[in-house]
């Protein structure tokens, strides 16, 4: 089934559709339970967990505090190592850069290791316009691509599918495939089909987990080996990353790597960890002849400019927030209609796409705080969401830089209601009159009060308010004393 969505503006209908799909809900619940357990077992010592989170948060905050300098240093050191560095302000610029490299090499096929940033800039779509095919080589992404679908999770793109559905997808799209529910056999099928493509591809494209300013090197975290194939077999390697992924020192990487893998899949370490520091040197027998690094802004500097919002950029893309989010668990990644779904998606997408497009998303949280509780770099996601809700409803204060789409959710009616609420809550006589009438007129409360009563009875007011009962109680006390 294709779950592709029309965008975050359609969150409501997309969420509703997802909720009405029992198979999808079962797949997500099962997958999230599994991932929650995995994370729990990786952090079996709560004291150690807190230490790792403290350290990871401190590293990310230090690196972000000097982001501009670190990016310059990264550029200098990468260039010195022979990596060509490109800066892209937005998706169009990033696609142009990649297109120019591809056209210079007359590329027909780009093989991709998993890269959410390439999803963010819609690389596949843009390259297709130029007659260049992009083939996903991460198993999850490969499955999703066969379906003409998009990832529903940032590290597990096909998590919305169970093995039966994967078998169905293969049966539908691959020649000579015999349906099977054997997961190893399914994986082997994908691996075999992809193998020759690594050799055929003109360019390998990857994301970046950590870009090390000190050494000018790019770190890639992966389990399947396809990342290594993408970045060593084709003669050109293009890495693309958001500007926030830079770290200062090589020694910053191990703690963040540990926090990332434990939080994401509960692994102490992944099967592969790649450090790419240059193209192939003379005398070396493998590796690409050219390595390019594309540094993408695409709205990230907007988050960077505000001290609170900047914490959004601490993210190391582990996905733990979505794995623990009760909303994501119910509706799945596609409902969000954004590249980054779940809690992190709700706070990064407004910067990438504007609040006008994402105003529904920022309300789609019960503020339960499960995301912040597990975030390995301690991003205060609910607090940032609260700020975004304020920005969606109100124009900026005099000393603030406006966000794209600021005040786009301003509603005269709701604003009036909230002003009314504030007036009543600051005027005790009015508040008391309100609560008193609520209890006295409770017989008039309708049985159907809109969405609330589609699965609940309407709330029952008490006979008297606490204020009244206390008055009576104090009176009685006065009489007896």
């Amino acid at each position, binding site marked *: 089934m294709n779950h592709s969505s029309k965008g975050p503006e359609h969150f409501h209908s997309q969420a509703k559709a997802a*909720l009405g799909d029992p198979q999808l809900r079962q797949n997500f619940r099962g997958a999230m339970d599994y991932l929650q357990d995995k994370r729990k077992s990786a952090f079996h010592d709560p004291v150690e967990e807190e230490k790792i989170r403290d350290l990871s948060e401190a590293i990310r905050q230090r690196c972000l505090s000097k982001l501009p300098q670190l990016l310059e240093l990264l550029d200098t050191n990468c260039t010195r190592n022979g990596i060509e560095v490109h800066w892209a302000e937005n998706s169009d610029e990033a696609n142009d850069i990649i297109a120019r490299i591809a056209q210079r090499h007359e590329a027909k096929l780009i093989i991709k290791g998993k890269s959410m940033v390439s999803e963010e800039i819609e690389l596949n779509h843009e390259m297709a316009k130029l007659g260049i095919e992009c083939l996903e080589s991460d198993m999850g992404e490969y499955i999703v691509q066969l379906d003409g679908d998009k990832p529903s999770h940032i590290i597990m793109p096909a998590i919305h599918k169970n093995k039966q559905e994967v078998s169905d997808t293969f049966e539908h799209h691959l020649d000579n495939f015999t349906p099977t529910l054997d997961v190893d056999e399914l994986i082997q099928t994908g691996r075999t089909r992809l193998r020759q493509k690594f050799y055929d591809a003109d360019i390998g494209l990857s994301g970046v987990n950590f870009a090390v300013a000190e050494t000018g090197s790019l770190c890639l975290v992966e389990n399947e080996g396809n990342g290594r194939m993408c970045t060593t077999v084709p003669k050109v390697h293009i890495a693309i990353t958001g500007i926030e992924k830079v770290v200062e020192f090589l020694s910053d990487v191990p703690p963040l790597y540990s926090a990332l893998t434990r939080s994401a899949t509960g692994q102490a370490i992944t099967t592969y960890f790649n450090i790419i520091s240059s193209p192939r040197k003379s005398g070396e027998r493998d590796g690409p002849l050219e390595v390019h690094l594309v540094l993408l802004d695409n709205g990230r500097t907007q988050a960077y400019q505000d001290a609170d919002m900047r914490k959004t950029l601490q993210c190391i893309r582990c996905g733990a927030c979505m794995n623990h989010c009760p909303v994501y668990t119910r509706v799945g990644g596609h409902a969000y209609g954004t590249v980054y779904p779940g809690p992190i998606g709700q706070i990064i997408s407004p910067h990438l796409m504007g609040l006008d497009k994402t105003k529904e998303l920022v309300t789609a949280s*019960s503020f339960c705080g499960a995301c912040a509780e597990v975030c390995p770099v301690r991003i205060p996601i609910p607090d940032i969401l609260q700020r975004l809700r304020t920005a969606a409803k109100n124009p900026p204060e005099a000393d603030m830089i406006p966000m794209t789409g600021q005040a786009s959710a301003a509603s005269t009616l709701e604003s009036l209601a*909230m002003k009314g609420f*504030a007036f009543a809550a600051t005027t005790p006589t009015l508040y008391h009159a309100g609560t008193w009438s609520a209890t006295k007129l409770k017989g008039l409360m309708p049985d159907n009060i*809109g969405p609330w009563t589609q699965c*609940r*009875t309407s709330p029952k007011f008490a006979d008297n308010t*606490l*204020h009244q009962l*206390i008055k009576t109680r104090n009176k009685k006390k006065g009489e007896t004393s």
Partner: protein
Amino acid sequence: MRIYPAKPKTVYFYGTCLVDMFDPEAGLDAISLLEQQGLEVIFIEKQTCCGQPAYSSGYTKEAKLVAQNQMDLFVDPWPVIVLSGSCGGMMHHHYRRLYQGDSAQATVEKFCNRVFELTEFLVNVCRIKLEDKGDATSVVMHTSCAARREMNVHVTATQLLNQLQNVELKIPAYESECCGFGGTFAVRHPHISQAMVEDKTRHLSETKAAVLVSADWGCLLNINGAFEYQGQSLKGRHIASFLLERIGGK
């Protein structure tokens, strides 16, 4: 970790607007519990609501107005005991955030530090000892997410229930998961909220506990409404009423 003061002589009592309208008996029961600890309990009649509905909807200015108005009522340096973890979280954590960089920040911080949720106060300040006088029963507890994650009071509520000799505490599946209330969330995203409360009520009733208790009336409005809609007999009540009843104070 929070540092708790010595037991005072007098406390302020904050009923919360939901208890005020939906379960005022719980307010009286909480007052009785506190009085049994030898405390003088002051209920300021002008108190209304903590301002959370405006705050969580993005109406910061309105929330700040309400916050200031409430804080102005509690002039003496006594602890303010709040009957809900969620409102407690608002007044203990978010009032500070509202005043970040404001000239009144220091004063507000002082107020915030005086705010305690009921169970937290009974355990950590009163060091209450409960003597269970009730018949054998079983109970399941639901704490609001704010109570759990902002105030850490799922711990103190559990400690109180564990003091009751004849009460078996049952733990539901997905204990820490949100019930789907989230204030305006339940109205803005009714379908997601419905999916959440249906799961929550199922997990609670699967424990086969005789009683559901919570210190948060927001969650109880949601959960009780769903139970009643489903025609189930399990019904949540405020933990203050349950405790008072168990120790024979009622």
